[in-house]
């Protein structure tokens, strides 16, 4: 397997312009001869599908929910970054580029990140023109706020529902095309396999979740926009249906999987309340603009928060990182919370949380102002915990949130399978080992609105593709293997639910492959996961039939893939003998507990190649070359 990043030559600021000129174009009359299949309708998928249809391509779109508007991008809260520099506070494309590479702990590809920063401003223009109701100043201009890992205010937002509003913008653009007949929309469909013909991605097999029918769809290119794999940990901030299946099946058909161990643990989530819990809810990072994080100075302090005097509180982020304070990046804030809790200073009934306190902000600007900025988040917190955060400090704890890893893609967002592109969270490209807040929305929309419309032309214009129909043997084989798998799941008739086995996997992932990883814990995970997998295939209970709406069967298929993927994640974590970003190996830390990178050995992307059932996957390396940024120890102090 060859990993060719295809990064254009020349100065970084000119690479994208040069590349856009060098790529082949497809003339308007020819575009309508090409069909593009788009899987997933989050920010990346919806924006890509709408933009490609506007250009004249035939587009077919698939999503698992009952409407494209429900994809999990909808839950993103805090905001979207752009280098507009409207506040006149020193921002620039270069600074956004620099902050993102540094935030990712120097494990991302420079040229991709630079392009992301470059197109960020066009995204805001596009969304504003669509009627996305961004927050405004009285004069009518756009408002900004600050986010973790930055010292400028570059984050645009729509209350605490930025993801929802951006997705509805992209969804409305998509619906416009569906109405115009340029996009064919298939809802309640799950991709079960990728079809590869003569080495190129030419179609998908999907299951109609309402009838159970397997469908074959052929096209000239396939775009996977299927989100992240955080649910491999069972509990995460992801939606219940978020899964790795589409990406995993593509991996098994030859797409390399890059940096699966780079998983973001978000510092501000509502703590776990019991074994029944089905998901964790995020409290937006934007809250750290006004909320102060603290724990008592004394271990096991039993007093309720208001009774602990100011001088007996440890505002540890402000103490440890005075330059960034409560707005340090997520990996740093999560690790610091874990240190406090490990030190016995956690709060709440279980001791597994820290305070996020708004008392000072309420005193400074009043409850109404705080409500205006964060009202919906405070309400969410109140619903879940039955505690009123206007009166008592929130209690928060880190939780699995975002996947920086994903399918390996080149500069054109193409995977190692020609014609298979991967966009948004599902790819590995821009965030290195840690993603900065408000950068996921930026990347999803950059990929969909402003990168793929160009690079897909480069591929289709330069590639001779024979006509392929769904009668081709590759389609028959893919459909047959999907059907075999479904039949196998239904035939086991065991005693344990897919959810129960998923929960067991999640515990292993969180305890052994979570916030602190060691060679020993990873070894344990790599031993235990195949045992759970064996138990699954022996004892899972999948009731009812294939030929109906069957959520138990859906869940079982996804859990089966997580049970394979989790092992690869652990192997990747074991092979990366350093700490960086969200990947923390306890063997590699500084005296004060900060991550210690090994640039000499690990300034590379690890991309895993599938070698067949029961065979060891092969770890390939794409070296990361920094020509524009000085690689240094990351400091936020």
């Amino acid at each position, binding site marked *: 397997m060859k990993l060719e990043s295809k990064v254009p030559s020349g100065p970084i600021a000119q690479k994208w312009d040069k590349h856009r000129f060098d790529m082949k174009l497809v003339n308007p009359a020819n575009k309508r001869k090409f069909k593009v299949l788009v899987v997933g309708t989050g920010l990346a998928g919806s924006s890509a599908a709408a933009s490609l249809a506007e250009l004249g391509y035939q587009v077919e779109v698939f999503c698992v929910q009952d409407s494209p*508007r429900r994809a*999990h991008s909808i839950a993103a809260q805090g905001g979207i970054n752009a280098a507009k520099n409207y506040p006149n506070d020193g921002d620039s494309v270069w600074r956004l580029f620099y902050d993102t590479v540094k935030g990712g702990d120097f494990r991302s590809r420079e040229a991709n990140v630079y392009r992301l920063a470059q197109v960020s401003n066009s995204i805001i223009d596009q969304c504003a023109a669509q*009627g996305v109701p961004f927050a405004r100043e009285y004069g009518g201009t756009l408002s900004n706020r600050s986010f973790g890992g930055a010292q400028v205010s570059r984050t645009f937002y729509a209350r605490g529902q930025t993801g929802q509003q951006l997705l509805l913008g992209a969804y409305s653009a998509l619906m416009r095309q569906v109405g115009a007949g340029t996009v064919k929309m298939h809802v309640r469909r799950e991709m079960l396999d990728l079809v590869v013909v003569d080495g190129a991605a030419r179609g998908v097999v999907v299951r109609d979740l309402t009838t159970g029918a397997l469908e074959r769809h052929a096209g000239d290119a396939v775009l996977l926009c299927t989100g992240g794999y955080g649910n491999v940990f069972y509990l995460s901030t992801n939606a219940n249906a978020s899964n790795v299946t589409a990406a995993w099946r593509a991996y098994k058909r030859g797409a390399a999987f890059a940096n699966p161990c780079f998983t973001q643990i978000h510092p501000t989530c509502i703590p776990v309340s019991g074994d029944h819990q089905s998901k964790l809810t995020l409290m937006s990072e934007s809250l750290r603009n006004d909320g102060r994080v603290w724990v008592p100075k004394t271990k096991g302090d039993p007093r309720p928060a208001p009774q602990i005097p100011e001088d007996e509180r440890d505002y540890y982020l402000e103490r440890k990182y005075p330059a960034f304070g409560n707005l340090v990046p997520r990996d740093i804030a999560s690790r610091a919370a874990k240190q406090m809790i490990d030190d016995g200073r956690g709060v709440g009934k279980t001791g597994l949380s820290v305070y996020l306190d708004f008392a000072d902000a309420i005193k400074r600007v009043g409850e109404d102002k705080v409500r205006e900025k964060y009202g919906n988040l405070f309400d969410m917190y109140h619903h879940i915990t039955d505690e009123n955060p206007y009166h008592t400090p929130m209690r928060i704890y880190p939780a699995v949130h975002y996947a920086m890893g994903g399918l390996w893609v080149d500069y054109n967002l193409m995977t190692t399978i020609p014609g298979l592109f991967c966009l948004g969270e599902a790819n590995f490209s821009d965030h290195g080992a840690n993603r900065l807040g408000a950068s996921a929305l930026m990347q999803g929309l950059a990929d969909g609105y402003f990168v793929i419309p160009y690079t897909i032309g480069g591929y289709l214009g330069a590639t001779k593709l024979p006509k392929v129909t769904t009668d081709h043997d590759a389609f028959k084989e893919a459909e047959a293997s999907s059907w075999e798998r479904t039949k196998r799941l239904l035939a086991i008739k065991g005693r344990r639910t897919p959810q129960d086995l998923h929960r067991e996997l999640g515990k292993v992932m969180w305890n052994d492959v979570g916030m602190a990883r060691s060679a020993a814990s990873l070894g344990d995970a790599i031993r235990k996961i195949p045992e759970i997998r064996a138990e699954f295939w022996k004892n899972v209970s999948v009731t009812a039939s294939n030929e*109906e709406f069957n959520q138990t069967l859906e869940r079982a298929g996804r859990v089966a893939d997580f049970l394979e993927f989790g092992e690869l994640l652990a192997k990747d974590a074991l092979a990366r003998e350093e700490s960086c970003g969200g990947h923390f190996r306890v063997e590699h830390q500084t005296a004060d507990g900060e991550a210690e990178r090994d640039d000499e050995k690990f300034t590379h992307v690890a991309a895993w190649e599938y070698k067949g059932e029961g065979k060891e996957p092969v770890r390939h390396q794409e070296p990361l070359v920094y020509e524009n940024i000085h690689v240094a120890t990351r400091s936020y102090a």
Partner: protein
Amino acid sequence: MADKNEQTMNLTLKVWRQKGPQEPGRLVEYKVTGVSPDMSFLEMLDVLNEQLVSRGEDAVAFDHDCREGICGMCSLMIDGRAHGPDSAATTCQLHMRRYKDGDTVVIEPFRAKGFPVVKDLVVDRSAFDRIMMAGGFVSVGTGAACDANSILVPKEKADKAMDAAACIGCGACVAACPNAAAMLFVAAKVSQYALLPQGQAERDRRALAMRKAMDAEGFGHCTNEYECEAACPKEIKVSNIARLNREFLRAAVSAD
């Protein structure tokens, strides 16, 4: 407060079971034990389903996804109320601390001509997508936008537009309405764009087209019951319906 969390409840559920769109449905009674007050309503249904599946029975189908009140996927009529007894909350945000030991809870799908049942508690809300296709957008192709700050939006207008745009498309307004009208859903989208400068060019066309699509889907008419506002998890106001009516009238009288 600590004690409250230790107590668990036993509940009787009466759940609508319907194998498919053409099959007859009925209420089936289930006992659920060991329900913690900290569970969400959907987590309580998870417990029921795990019990059913472990004994080889078909799970109760219900739509859900984000489980934090924003995707609009979850639904349910709980004791006759869309999204249950709490105001300004979706079913996934309803917690079992709202109930007490021994309670009986009736769970049905959202019922409307425009929302046919798929299975059990799952309904087909694709009519909403088709209404959106008719005009729920600003026609601006990718790349055709001007600098964002060249479109000034007064803060009051932006805030009102955001209030309307908060709609999650769950369909509770339809389920709660005695006429199964989709007016609040349509009004929210029409209002968002009518309030913003970006929506002006297609303002008339949009109001007429979305209204027409709404009627074609078989939704009823508004008779000012205000049930939609009461059921809306995002507290979208019926004043938006008044705006929709004005927009429609304005467009109708100014049409050629």
